[in-house]
């Protein structure tokens, strides 16, 4: 048996390859592979959707598919996504308009007015709303909100219009409870936490010095918010609103459960409509014709493009409106 190596020899021994350049090389390659996988996924999302939808896009044309107003999977097999595009844009814009100021109010209240314990609670609850699954909101919408809106809001208004302003009926539309307005309300509810959380983060990033400078001018709390805080945080707030808009565009389940699913224009105020995600959810599992499936995939591709534009726009605005200067030179 060989003598055991001395401590000195042990310490000076050349470490195994893994502990020299080879280990680091392998690790770097591995990590890069993981990174490439993520990148590959993002790219393949676009490529695959385009590829799968290419039959529809080829048949109806890139713009033709987008602005085609007929969606007929049963008889003529004609597909155009315009009604869903309109449905998506209108519901998302309306939901953002409905939720923006309440969400901003929550952010301001939590960041500026509420004592610390209360703002912790508010922040946690806001995050909790964001965590409630879409389908749970959906089932509540189907069995509680929609019937309630129908009985206390849509029907009375419809009755009133039928009696005294019949010319309004086509605008109001069917008051059955499942339709555009219900979807918008639920959508607004669901994007509030995103707008609120992103605005709150933007407000919290406003330097203390800006606030104090305004206080020192003899401003009240609200004046400090209006004069120093909101202008400084505007890029984050606007970018947050756009990101929330992006969320609204992609929100699927609750909308599909509540919007009533009507595939033809025109849509009216209370009556059923459809959005791009909702039509995919409703028809994907039943699509038997190749062209039908391809058309749904193509809708997915356009949805990808719209989401991409919205996300890039948010990033651009964040940068563009970012407050330059104001810090010490």
């Amino acid at each position, binding site marked *: 048996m060989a003598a055991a190596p001395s401590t000195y020899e042990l310490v000076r021994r050349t470490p195994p390859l893994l502990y020299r350049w080879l280990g680091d090389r392998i690790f770097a390659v591995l990590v890069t592979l993981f990174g490439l996988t993520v990148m590959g996924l993002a790219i393949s999302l676009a490529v695959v959707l385009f590829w799968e939808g290419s039959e529809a896009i080829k048949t109806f044309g890139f713009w033709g598919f987008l602005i085609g107003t007929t969606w007929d999977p049963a008889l003529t097999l004609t597909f155009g996504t315009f009604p869903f595009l309109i449905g998506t844009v209108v519901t998302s814009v309306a939901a953002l308009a409905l939720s923006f100021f309440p969400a901003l109010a929550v952010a301001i209240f939590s960041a500026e007015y509420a004592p*610390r314990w209360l703002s912790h609670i508010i922040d946690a609850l806001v995050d909790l709303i964001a965590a409630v699954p879409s389908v749970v909101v959906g089932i509540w919408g189907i069995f509680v909100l929609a019937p309630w809106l129908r009985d206390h809001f849509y029907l009375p208004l419809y009755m009133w219009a039928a009696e005294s302003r019949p010319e309004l009926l086509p605008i109001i539309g069917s008051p059955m409870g499942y339709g555009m307005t219900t979807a918008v309300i639920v959508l607004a509810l669901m994007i509030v936490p995103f707008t609120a959380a992103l605005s709150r983060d933007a407000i919290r990033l406003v330097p203390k*010095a*800006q*606030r*104090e*400078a*305004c*206080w*020192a*001018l*003899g*401003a*009240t709390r609200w*004046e400090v918010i209006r*004069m*120093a805080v909101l*202008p*400084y945080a*505007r890029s984050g707030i606007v970018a947050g609103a756009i990101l929330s808009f992006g969320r609204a565009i992609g929100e699927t389940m609750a909308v599909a459960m509540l919007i009533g699913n009507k595939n033809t224009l025109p849509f009216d105020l209370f009556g059923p409509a459809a959005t791009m995600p909702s039509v995919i959810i409703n028809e994907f599992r039943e699509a038997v014709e190749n062209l039908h499936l391809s058309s749904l995939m193509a809708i997915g591709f356009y949805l990808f493009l719209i989401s991409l534009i919205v996300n890039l726009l948010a990033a651009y605005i964040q940068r563009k409106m970012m*407050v*330059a*200067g*104001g*810090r*010490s*030179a």
Partner: protein
Amino acid sequence: MHNQESTAAGRHAETAPAATDIRMETRKLSVFYGDTAGVNDVSLSMYNKKITALIGPSGCGKTTFLRSLNRMHDLTRGARVTGQALLDGSDIYAPKVDPVTVRRRVGMVFQKPTPFPTMSIYDNVVAGLKLVGIRNRAVLDEVAEKALRGAALWDEVKDRLKAPGGGISGGQQQRLSIARALAVEPEVLLMDEPTSSLDPQSTIRIEELMSELKKQVTIVIVTHNMQQASRISDYTAFFYVGDLVEFNPTAKMFTNPNQKRTEEYITGRFG
């Protein structure tokens, strides 16, 4: 600690001008953060149209003391002020006194320039006036020009009043902050190390400006730069771990201080 205060008060009684010249005065003012005192029982007089410099090693409470003079501590969670701070003889911490009004009479300029970056130079200057609802263009124009002239910035920016307030140099930004504070015509101007983030050239401009300004307002300045204190101030107060160690006319303070610790600090043996 109590002793300290009474000796300090006694000391400036000998050298002080007539009491009617006191613009602002604290009596046994303490500031607590939670349970720890950041400023201990400080009694100090700030004379009308003079510059009072507050010096001391960092963490000695001089900025904390300064911020108690326009109730900025109201905004800090867990901060509490006891004692009195008299402005023209009435306590700004008295029950019914409104902090917003106090801050209009006692303006403040901070360590770093704080122009509102989304506003133009012009809008920055008149920000304090717009708060109280003054929208009359002629009035605003007049005040803006006067304040900018007062802050020795007018000639440099008069051709680009609509340019963003964050787009000028650091020294100009600081003078803009001063102009904004001056526009509401405060009686006292608090300055918290106003030149510490500026280059020597800009520092000199601000110092010149201060000696010009003291013809109109009472200035209290915190500085960590003893040369600056000796150059510009009429009175100097030396703070050490929350206590006011010595208060004297600047000339005396820098040539023949009463306290050993003051001398040690001024000669650079600690701090």
